[in-house]
């Protein structure tokens, strides 16, 4: 194993050493990204604190992927600031982000399907033993550790040697999350972890997001499902056309408002009158533009007890 | 292979060069035997140069890239071109259609003469007629013994593969062979198939055919070994190219067989093998002569109106047998890559 761990991979230790004052681990200030003359992202503020789930919502093409690519080190921002622990950074590889404790779990490429579960778990950070020419994988220890860590996250697998591709989508995501937690991630970026999953599987994944949060991790939860976001989120940022449309704490917004923002409520409201002309389209339930102003007072969250 | 023949006084320049190279590469690893250093300064076949006006001759063959045989043909052609003040344009393609295009190309360049091989005479018929219509003399070489006259060519230099094969078969009868295996290194090659067919026609014993993968020597070696083990009555291995004959020597020893080896075509290492008795004989159709005569004849035709055989008879360049009786004379030339 190389110099991968920013901090100890031990979950409880992470929690103990995490900044208790809620200072952001990762912070974006007016950050943006241009590809040539195409501006994919502009003026985004975002902060991720330990033991908090920051949800990033937005429709396809809203700039969600660009945002996570900047934070995970795949791309570099071209404007604004990107701070980790208050220090400006600019990652050139995912490895650098990992070294700072920022781990990304991608929806479609979280794992290598044909490789056994335990190999996937340790991929890129394998445990080895022995002197150099004969340095080899410490398979027993890796299997044992992987099993323990998965159980700690509440995942029980009978056969760690089975290809990870034989697990269900939810199980795969969970292995990837457990893996990131084990390897000392302080910030976990989850790219649409529930997008391709059924209702039950999504619930399983949300449970592990909460579990990761409770272990002291800052979680960035990318999704376009406001219901999923509202179940676990502490803070919500909605992206539209590359800019931040909404940034609100859980106490400042209701699920309904969040849903309206996500559903492209503002645009729909503008269309409401036109749609009203068309017979058969029920416009009564669509929000008026006036409903969409963020009202900080609207605190009563109906779903706040969903996971706690 | 033969250490004794390599001892020659070395030139100072060569020693200096070798010393420098050795120092450059790794101290003290200069080879005390063999290598280019030991290769004699063989001298070139320069026979003066004609003062006739510069002319251009195109030589178009069906050579596949990297074939030793054609390399020697080309060397002969180049020697004649150098002597006769000829600019030689050499091109080749094993595909008959492409070869015809190359002849057309030569016609377009308005060359003074074309020498062409007729591996597939039908494919070449039209383009040869075109050349003649354009007033360019065309001579044939190597293959096409039975077709050159029909195509209206001026003359022909060569020896059919079939004729060479037949001569080979007769020689096998002379040495008392009973069962031969003909090793074809490229399945579907017309010339190689003709050689084996020729052997089969005149050889009184049985002839079997064996196909080997010519681009993979270990596989050639194993396959010949396997054949010799499968049929221990085989007493002659007929190789169709010098490198394969040399590999067959190893196969025979691996198989513990008593079979002897003979081959078509020559090269430097093969002459050493004949000297040592590893290989009994080689039949040579003198490719150098084919290239040389074809080019030279076009020069003669242009400058003096001569043509060999009077347009009726071909000029046969083989078969010439090389065995222990004459190998010493020929080895010298094979070392230069011209036999």
């Amino acid at each position, binding site marked *: 194993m190389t110099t991968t761990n920013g901090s100890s991979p031990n979950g409880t230790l992470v929690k103990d050493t995490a900044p208790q004052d809620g200072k952001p681990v990762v912070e974006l200030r007016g950050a943006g990204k241009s590809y040539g003359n195409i501006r994919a992202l502009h003026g985004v503020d975002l902060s991720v604190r330990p033991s908090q789930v920051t949800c990033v919502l937005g429709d396809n093409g809203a700039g969600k992927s660009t945002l996570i690519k900047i934070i995970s080190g795949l791309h570099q921002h071209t404007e604004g600031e990107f701070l980790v622990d208050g220090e400006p950074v600019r990652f050139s590889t995912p490895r650098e982000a990992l070294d700072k404790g920022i781990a990304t779990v991608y929806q479609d*490429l979280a794992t290598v399907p*044909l490789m056994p579960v335990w190999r996937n778990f340790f991929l890129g950070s394998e445990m080895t033993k022995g002197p150099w020419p004969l340095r080899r994988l410490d398979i027993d220890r890796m299997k044992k*550790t992987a099993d323990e860590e998965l159980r700690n996250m509440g995942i029980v697998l009978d056969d760690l040697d089975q290809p990870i591709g034989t697990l269900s989508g939810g199980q795969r995501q969970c292995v990837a999350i457990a893996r990131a937690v084990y390897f000392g991630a302080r910030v976990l970026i989850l790219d649409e972890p529930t997008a391709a999953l059924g209702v039950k599987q999504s619930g399983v994944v949300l449970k592990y997001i909460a*579990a990761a949060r409770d272990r002291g991790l800052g979680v960035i939860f990318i999704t376009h499902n406001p219901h999923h976001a509202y179940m676990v989120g502490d803070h919500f940022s909605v992206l539209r056309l590359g800019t931040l449309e909404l940034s609100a704490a859980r106490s400042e917004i209701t699920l309904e408002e969040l849903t309206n923002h996500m559903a492209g409520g503002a645009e729909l409201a503008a269309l409401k009158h036109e749609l009203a002309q068309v017979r058969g389209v029920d416009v009564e339930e669509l929000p008026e533009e006036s409903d969409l102003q963020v009202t900080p007072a609207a605190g009563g969250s109906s779903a706040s007890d969903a996971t706690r | 292979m033969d250490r004794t023949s390599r001892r020659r006084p070395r030139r100072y320049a060569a020693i200096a060069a070798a010393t420098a190279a050795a120092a450059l590469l790794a101290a003290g690893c200069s080879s005390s035997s*063999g290598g280019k250093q030991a290769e004699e300064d063989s001298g070139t076949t320069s026979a003066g140069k004609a003062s006739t006006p510069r002319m251009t001759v195109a030589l178009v063959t069906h050579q596949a890239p990297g074939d030793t045989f054609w390399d020697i043909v080309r060397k002969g052609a180049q020697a004649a071109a150098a002597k006769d003040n000829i600019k030689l344009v050499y091109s080749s393609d094993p595909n008959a259609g492409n070869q015809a295009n190359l002849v057309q190309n030569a016609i377009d360049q308005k060359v003074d003469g074309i020498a062409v091989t007729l591996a597939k005479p039908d494919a070449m018929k039209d383009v040869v007629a075109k050349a003649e219509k354009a007033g360019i003399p065309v001579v044939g070489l190597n293959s096409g013994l039975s077709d050159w006259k029909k195509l209206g060519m001026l003359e022909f230099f060569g020896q059919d593969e079939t004729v060479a094969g037949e001569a080979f078969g007769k020689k096998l009868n002379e040495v008392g062979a009973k069962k031969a295996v003909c090793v074809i290194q490229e399945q579907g090659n017309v010339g190689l198939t003709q050689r084996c067919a020729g052997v089969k026609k005149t050889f009184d014993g049985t002839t079997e055919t064996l196909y080997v993968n010519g681009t993979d020597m270990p596989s050639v070696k194993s396959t010949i070994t396997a054949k010799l083990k499968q049929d221990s009555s085989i007493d002659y291995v007929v190789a169709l190219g010098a490198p394969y004959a040399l590999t067959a020597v190893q196969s025979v020893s691996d198989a513990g067989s008593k079979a002897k080896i003979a081959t078509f075509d020559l090269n430097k290492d093969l002459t050493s093998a004949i000297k040592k008795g590893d290989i009994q004989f080689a039949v040579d159709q003198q490719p150098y002569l084919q290239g040389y005569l074809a080019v030279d004849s076009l020069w003669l035709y242009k400058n003096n109106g001569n043509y060999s055989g009077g347009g009726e008879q071909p000029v046969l360049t083989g078969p010439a047998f090389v065995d222990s009786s004459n190998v010493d004379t020929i080895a010298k030339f094979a070392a230069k890559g011209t036999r």
Partner: protein
Amino acid sequence: MTVTQATAPATSPSSPASPAAQRDGRTAQRSLGRRLLARPEVGALIAAVGVYVFFFAAAPAFREASALSTVLYQASVMGIMALPVALLMIGGEFDLSAGVAVTTSALTAAILSFQLSVNVWTGVVVALVVSLAVGAFNGWLLIKTGLPSFLVTLGSFLVLQGANLAVTKIFTSNVASDSISDMDGFDQAKTIFASEFSVGGVNVKITIIYWLVFAAAATWLLLRTKFGNWIFAVGGNKDSARAVGVPVNLTKIALFMGVGAGAWFVGMHLLFSFNTVQSGEGVGNEFLYIIAAVIGGCLLTGGYGSAIGPVIGAFIFGMVSQGIVYANWNPDWFKAFLGVMLLVAALVNLWVRRTATRR
């Protein structure tokens, strides 16, 4: 840095504690037999046994130990090259220049030693450097251009094929390298690369030993080292591998250089076994290496396979191509027989794998 933290597993207070050995019923333990059958090389092994039994019955000459030695020799020369090619395929790439790269290596050593009249070992070392450089260049070009390896190595295949002929002609004014059999160091090098020894009256070529040793080393590399893990990962899902910090580019370049090293070794065997090298040799062999790997259970798409597989694949190929000769079937049909036998072997392999994965 070593890992010590695993000794103190943390139990998160919030994680749903589960009974120790509870199963969730989705992933029933597969039986030992099934798991064995699911190994990539088992199908090939069964096919190999089948082919062996077939020719044992059909060809009397095939039954001798010396026949096995002949088969193994051909298989070993092909198999040594099939190993790095298989690793590269597991890593998700092809190398179409592998066949001519062998010839390039042999020609480099032969021409350099001969032209400079130096000890052949100098040529051997320079050839190694050249072979590794060709491999590294292939890998570098693949990564820089992002083109499929099929295209990149097809380019280098043609370049090497042309260079083999042209450079040989420049130096030797011939199409084969000059014989270096009478030069210093030749006998020594021949002992190492191309010698043979006798076991119970049967001649065994040393390449067979190297082949098995290399296969064992490759297996160890693949299954027991970090690099092996990376090979599977870059072939199975390159982007995932990159995302978790696997040095994808380094791994791929190293795999191409591995093919270069294999080409060097086989090239040296050719040179010291046959004294000269024809510049046109090796063309088409790249497909034989790939065939050996595929028969041995490597996926064409990468991410799956073993190092034992191509060993068995090369052995099957050797058995079939020599078995046809031992059986004395009509040689005009040789290629057709070869094709049918290989197809049958591949089908048996496929059938075994399907049976194994069905549940």
